């Protein structure tokens, strides 16, 4: 349907449980380049606050569920090329 409209890309802003749902690989959405380092920065802080250790993943689908469902980040700006 979107292709018929002439769309070449779908963008969504995922919030609340959608931050976990829409970042699953099966949907094919990726985080915008400008947003990934911001989420990684927030992830480092989240790890510190939860006394955990680790390094930020390079793909949004690899971030832990607990982080994505936490209020650390409001919206995730995702896109998918058609």
């Amino acid at each position, binding site marked *: 349907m979107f292709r018929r409209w002439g769309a070449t890309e*779908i963008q*969504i802003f995922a*919030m*609340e*449980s959608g931050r976990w749902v829409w970042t699953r690989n099966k949907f094919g959405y990726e985080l915008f380049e400008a947003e990934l380092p911001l989420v990684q*920065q927030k992830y480092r802080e989240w790890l510190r606050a939860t006394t955990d250790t680790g390094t930020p993943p390079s793909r949004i689908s690899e971030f832990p569920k607990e982080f994505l469902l936490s209020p650390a980040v409001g919206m995730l*700006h995702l896109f998918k090329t058609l």
Partner: protein
Amino acid sequence: MNSELKVSNQFGELILHVRYASGDNPMLLTIDATNEMKHAILHIAGKDFDRVVVSGNEPHVIYARWGAPEFLRVLAHYFVGNYGWNTTVLEAFQASTLSPLACSGNLVSSVGQSTADTSPAASYCFVASLTANNPRRQPRAVTNSGVESKAVAGSAQFGRH
């Protein structure tokens, strides 16, 4: 006009300090930043800033044209609203006068300063308000210029491709 933005995290540590020059030859210069924030600024500079933040469970479009005087202020609003960071904006209205604007916490105002013809006509941006009860509820559309518009018919199937 020159302005500066300082961003600090929940531990009170400075994670970003940038200087911005608006006008015909805009510039966004990183003065100090973590590695992640440096990378983010590389991708943010040179483009119109068009995002959505949640305020009071409602999504709000925020937009600033690259080169516009309010660009750094809009960026600060986004950092506060989406990531909970504390920000301070110093705006130089005259060469020797800096006026601090601080914002922090979860307060976000909608600052859509949209202008037309900033995006190619063939591009579309679909916005879905994804709630805990039903991630596919409340589909919305955003026009090419980033202004929220009426819902798109049939978009209940949104994202199920």
